[in-house]
């Protein structure tokens, strides 16, 4: 009897923590559950971000200058890529071999919004390769095509393509490698995650681990586990899908810390750690958020 009671209490506590047991909560907790319910209703009923999957699919089939399209190698509808996106980002020996070593380090397309690593310029040596980088490598090396921009503002095609390729792994568990070569980068990412910074002196963990489920003004802080597997996500406020690095940059700005460029080494390492905290959860791209 005592055992059953404690299991019941633990279950309710767990459900309360995940905001699902609306009926069993009271007062403040109920309010939290209800507003999350509202967001869930939006996401489950019909996520407008899903239309980006179709956009990405069209790009996938579009031929490059040498007559090849992504579909030429990876299957008419991308079938061969099932499960592939679930393993990104990965640590490789040669991060970004584009065959092009000249050009500016950062492509400044104007103010903070467009700051990104030059998508044409190679990054040599061991490091973290993201899915976006892999997409560009295929474009440059296999299709003789121009690389896509990595930024939120200018990289619409990259965003559509990323969403499409990731959606091919929907339902599969996220499986980012953190051992062997990857361990060192995971540790670096962990440091970035937990170091306090900015005028508000917060770390990522301050909000998304230590205060997950609590309110910050009107919004509820999401738990770190369950974040990465749904990016790129559809943001209701922006009525647009948003990249992971867009969010990293946004979070940093909100706590009044410096943000890094899209695809910077720091964010790539952060992806290894941050992403791995959602390992095992099914991919669900695009997700939805307020």
């Amino acid at each position, binding site marked *: 009897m005592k055992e059953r009671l404690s299991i019941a209490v633990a279950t309710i506590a767990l459900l309360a923590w995940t905001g699902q047991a609306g009926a069993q909560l009271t007062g403040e907790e109920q*309010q939290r559950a*209800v*507003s999350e*319910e*509202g*967001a869930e*209703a*939006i996401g489950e*009923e019909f996520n407008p971000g899903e239309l980006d999957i179709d956009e990405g699919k069209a790009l996938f089939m579009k031929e490059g200058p040498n007559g090849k399209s992504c579909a030429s190698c990876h299957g008419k509808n991308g079938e061969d890529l099932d499960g592939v996106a679930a393993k990104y980002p990965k640590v490789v020996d040669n991060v970004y071999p584009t065959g092009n070593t000249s050009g500016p380090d950062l492509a400044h397309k104007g103010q903070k919004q467009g700051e990104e690593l030059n998508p044409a310029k190679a990054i040599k040596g061991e490091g973290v390769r993201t899915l976006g980088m892999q997409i560009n490598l295929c474009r440059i090396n296999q299709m003789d095509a121009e690389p896509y921009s990595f930024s939120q503002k200018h990289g619409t095609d990259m965003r559509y393509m990323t969403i499409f390729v990731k959606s091919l792994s929907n339902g599969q568990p996220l499986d980012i490698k953190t051992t062997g070569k990857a361990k060192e980068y995971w540790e670096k990412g962990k440091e970035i995650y937990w170091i306090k910074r900015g005028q508000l002196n917060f770390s990522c963990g301050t*909000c998304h681990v230590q205060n997950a489920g609590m*309110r*910050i*003004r*009107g*919004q*509820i*802080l999401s738990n770190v586990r369950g974040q990465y597997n749904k990016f790129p996500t559809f*943001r*209701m*406020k922006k*009525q647009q899908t948003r990249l992971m690095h867009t969010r990293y940059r*946004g*979070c940093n*700005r*909100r*706590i009044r810390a410096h943000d890094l460029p899209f695809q910077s080494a720091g964010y790539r390492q952060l992806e290894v750690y941050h992403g791995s905290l959602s390992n095992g959860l099914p991919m669900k791209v695009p997700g939805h*958020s*307020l």
Partner: protein
Amino acid sequence: MRVTNDNTGRRSFLKTLGATGAVVAAAGAGLMKPVKSLAANFQYPKKAFDAEGMDAAMQAAMGTSSATEGNVSLKAPTIAENGAVVPITASSDLDADKVAKFHIFVAKNPAPYTARFHMVGTGRPEVSTRIKMGETSNIVAVAETTDGKFYKATKEVRVTIGGCGG
């Protein structure tokens, strides 16, 4: 035109004169015999959508600003973190063939009348959409029946300012 759905029963066919209130009143007085629905095309209620203030909006939309509480459910989040996209669901426990329309109002919006749904032949009086709210306000869902009666449900939705999501 044959109606495929046997559940719709009879429908008042609103002539496109914009005199919604008069027509409904006439139907209520038994002057207009309900006919089977044809291709509908109800006239867009522009004036009603422009009306300011709850009473004026309801008058323009329904011909009256009073409705009986009950028989209607309105589902909406208690707290909306994003006033631009507030999901709502209006439903009624009345028979499907008795519910002609749903009217949605957001009391504190500059023009409260938000939407009108014609349940021509749907089989279940329930409709959902997402609306814009300028500030914390009551949302009122009104079900209009085929015999000209109005039933309502009200829910306050609190619109908060953003947090760290930006």
